[in-house]
């Protein structure tokens, strides 16, 4: 069983290493990630949002919907923890 796990993990590693060869290079300006919306943010962020920190303007403005989801996830964690732990106390 242990041997089978190791073989499967080895095969998966080989698959990942094989797929890694097709990834664009790190910081490649011609990569799809660098040619889609990134140039627009870099060129217009300061003029459109008066925010020198590009990370903040993307996080809270251009991709604000995403950050709203993250915030909701965090508060959901708090509510879930409160519900679970309250229930535990009541059962005592």
């Amino acid at each position, binding site marked *: 069983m242990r041997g089978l796990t190791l073989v499967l993990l080895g095969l998966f590693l080989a698959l990942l290493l094989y797929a890694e060869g097709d990834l664009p290079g790190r910081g490649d300006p011609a990569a799809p990630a660098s040619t889609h919306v990134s140039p627009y943010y870099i060129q217009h962020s300061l*003029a*459109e*949002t*008066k*925010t*020198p*920190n590009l*990370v*903040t*303007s993307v*996080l*809270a*403005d251009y991709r*604000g*919907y995403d*950050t*709203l989801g993250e*915030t*909701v996830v*965090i*508060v959901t*964690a*708090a*509510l879930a*923890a*409160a519900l679970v*732990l*309250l229930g*535990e*106390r009541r059962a005592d």
Partner: protein
Amino acid sequence: MLTRHPSPVVTTVARLLAPLIALFALYVVAHGHYSPGGGFQGGVLLAASTLLLRLALGEKDSAPAFPPSLALPMAVTGVLLYTVTGVVPLFLGGGYLDYARLPWPGAPAPLLRYFGILVVEVGVALAVWGTMVAIFDRLARGEG
């Protein structure tokens, strides 16, 4: 239930440090436009100052600084602040979370988006702060 630490050194240092940590946290939230930082990081630092007081003073003696019952309402208020900032532009002809349509007469669009980001970051900070404290308080109480 957490109790007050017996050593006066611990309680005094914690009481000295907590406001400084909170002050730095406010700086991190407000300075997110110019440097690494923002709502998430600042919220965690605010929570750290509260949790330091909880650990050193116990829940009862640190309650005046941050009542345990405040944590969850504050977290929800943070999300509400964020959501309202997103919904208000909807009624004023913009898209969801379109800060340029926030109702502030005379302000140019970049400035509105600048302040929209700030309001949203404050909302995130409140949500993170309340969440951390709420989870910590419940886990600490469970210890018995």
